[in-house]
């Protein structure tokens, strides 16, 4: 029966479920198809919905690979038993240890850095230092933040819990809330717009949003600051977009090959450049625009903590009245 069932799935085809938008992921699929002749069928949806879809489909899922953003979502996929471990020396070589699942069920493919953006006309960069320092009274009425519903902020806070423990993190988040110039804003782009318009002086965003905005409006008085560079065992908070092979993949070998290709130097440029993210593969230089933002030290903690501590982070932000 099993062998009969297998034959119904076309060879030379991979099926991908992806929470990355089509415009960010399709160029990769096209490039791979062109190079290898393997065609890629894909379906986009929100992360939570894709996980439930995979779970409901069980052993009969057509999906071979899950591509999504945020380590928390990938961690959740492993918890639901939706992925399988992959033994691949290529992947271990190409993806640094802190950007992949300790049990090799998923691998980071691009790095997204969440950092501080400030108004050049109003803030001297040497006044800035760490994420924690955004709660310093000197920033009272000068801070803008995206809402706590953003998974990016949730994982930032999760990583802070790992570093400082809950009580201290809660204090820090409360001090942020006390400094807010305006109620939390629904997206990164608007938070930067508020800084540029003078509603506040600093905010925290993912760098590719900064890149996107500056491309359209190069004259905005905004600049990047890399926090937590002098702190031991810390650094800029990074998250990933990443992928894993589904537990019931029908084209497992092909999917692993594709995953390895995505981490290769050839694909990494393309992968990171489409959205101005950073490559995970250290042998690959970032895109020129991105490189111009300067080098920085990443937080070396394994991003899997963002998943494990996300629930704690969300609850903590509720307690701190960070909306």
């Amino acid at each position, binding site marked *: 029966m099993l062998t009969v069932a297998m034959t119904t*799935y076309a060879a030379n085809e991979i099926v991908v479920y992806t929470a990355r938008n089509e415009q960010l992921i399709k160029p990769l699929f096209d490039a791979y198809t062109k190079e290898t002749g393997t065609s890629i069928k894909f379906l986009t949806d929100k992360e*939570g919905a894709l996980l439930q879809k995979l779970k*409901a*489909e069980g052993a009969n899922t057509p999906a071979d690979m899950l591509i999504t953003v945020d380590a928390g979502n990938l961690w*959740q996929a492993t918890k639901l038993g939706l992925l399988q471990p992959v033994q691949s020396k290529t992947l271990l070589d190409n993806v640094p240890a802190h950007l992949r699942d300790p049990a090799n069920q998923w691998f980071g493919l691009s790095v997204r850095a969440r950092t501080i953006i400030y108004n050049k006309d109003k803030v001297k960069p040497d006044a800035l230092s760490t994420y924690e320092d955004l709660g310093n009274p000197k920033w009272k009425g000068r801070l803008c933040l995206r809402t706590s519903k953003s998974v990016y902020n949730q994982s930032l806070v999760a990583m802070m819990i790992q570093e400082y423990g809950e009580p201290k993190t809660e204090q820090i988040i409360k001090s942020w809330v006390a400094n807010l110039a*305006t109620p939390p804003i629904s997206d990164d782009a608007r938070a930067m717009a508020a800084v540029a318009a003078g509603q506040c002086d600093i905010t925290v965003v993912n760098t590719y949003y900064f890149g996107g905005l500056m491309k359209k409006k190069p004259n905005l008085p905004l600049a990047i600051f890399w926090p937590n560079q002098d702190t031991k065992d810390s650094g800029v908070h990074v998250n990933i977009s990443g992928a894993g092979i589904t537990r019931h993949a029908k084209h497992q070998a092909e999917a692993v090959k594709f995953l390895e290709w995505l981490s290769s130097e050839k694909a990494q440029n393309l992968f990171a450049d489409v959205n101005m993210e950073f490559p995970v593969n250290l042998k690959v230089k970032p895109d020129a625009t991105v490189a111009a933002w300067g080098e920085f030290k990443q937080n070396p903690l394994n991003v899997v903590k963002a998943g494990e501590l996300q629930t704690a982070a969300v609850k903590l932000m509720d307690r701190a009245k960070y909306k």
Partner: protein
Amino acid sequence: MQQLPISTAKAPIVGAFIFKFRLPSGWVLAALLIAMLTLVPVVVVLSSLLTPEREIWTHLVEYQLPQLLTNTFWLVLGVGLGVAILGVSLAWLTAVCEFPGRKQFSWALLLPLAIPAYVTAFVAIGLLDFTGPVQTLAREWWGPIEFPSIRSRGGVIAVMTLALYPYVYLIARNAFLTQGKHALEVAQSLGLSPAVGFFRVALPMARPWIVGGMMLALMETLADFGTVAVFNYDTFTTAIYKAWFSLFSLQAASQLASLLIVFVLVVLLAEQQTRTRMHYTQTGKHSVQARIFLTGAQAWLATGFCLVVLALGFIIPITQLLLWASEVVEQDLDVRYLDFFWHSLALAALAALLSGAVALLLSYSARQHPGLLLRMTARIATIGYALPGAVLAVGVFIPVAWLDNRFVAAGWVQSPLLQGSLMVMLLAYLVRFLAVAHSPIESQMHRITRSVDEAARSLGVSGVSLIARVHLPILRGGLLTAAALVFVDVMKEMPITLMTRPFGWDTLAVRVFEMTSGGEWNRAALPAVALVLAGLAPVVVLTKYRSK
């Protein structure tokens, strides 16, 4: 229970059974079947109540629910009042009065329906927030000044009212148009002024229509996530999404959603109970009515009012969308848009037909068999609309995938058959939008009184020909309204489309999702504009029919 000698007991009991429970008629069976089908996803969601998630509940109750419930209460109250006032007044003006621009306004006022509410929300914030052009210009001219914040309770209520009033407008207008002038004329002959006549006669007579429209708007409000997320205004739905996406518990999310459905069901049934004693009669078929001619200041006030609503609800948002779209049209508009367009239209049209037919059946059986059973059935069958779309999508998908897996396990098929098929997609739309189709048809059903049937029968018309020649013409306005509303709603729908579409069946709404989820609002504007254009089709059909 007392033991009876078998020989004597059996026959009378069976006899009583047959006497009491006659075989249900085809109508009742059909209605029950529909309800069972649409109830499956709801039951999947409700089943979560069996295993409570204590830890998450404790947290939500302590830190979130009081604020969420307060916010939800004010939102429902505000939007309810807002859509009633806008919808009824505009419907009355365009149906019964005559003033400059009335003819154009009568269809144009439907247009806000074609723009997804969260798009209007984003435009409103884009224009009116601190960083928007309005405040920026004001600062340039007059220096730093304080504006009331658009990101506030009032802001959300205003935006949702503007996006949702067309439900009330369309359904109430239908009522005013078909109400016949007689009742009003009688009122006037008794010396009541038009204004008093409106409040004492026309408004009470149009009540089921108005309430039906309001219920749709409020169910949509309760289920909304996108609009409140843009405003960061936390409602009950926010908690549902938070439990699922942030606290990783679909279980807790479903439990919250269950409470929402139970609440809506209670409200719906209570509302319906107050209606059962009312009777509606047909007071003459749409006589070509002499409208009330507004003159002078009154006429210009009416024109101005319609224009302001239209500007806020449609002209300004669409202008902003067009500006954004024009920036990206060269790079983004390609041949794939033909597919998006075609997929959207096909799905919307099929779903409109299906929902219209099923709603008609449901509402017809309730008429044939008046009573609590079928009233309840209709309510339960249409409750899917109150569920947040993403939760409903999961509720639909879980049983479908389960069936598929059973089929594969049984060896009937080699790979999943149902999931990713258009049939399941349409079924999911039916579950979500049956309420939208049902409300206008059911209100119109009140027009077919017993005396209509009796009169027809006395002329020798009965059975199928009674339905075709007498009932359907009376219901036509309601049917068209139903189809148009479902059509536009399916065009805009995202979570169900995303989760149940076959590979490659991307629609305009999917495209909007792709762009907005990446924060690219100007690129999302292009599919949004296309969506509005496609949504114009049913509006044109409605207008054509009405102007006959």
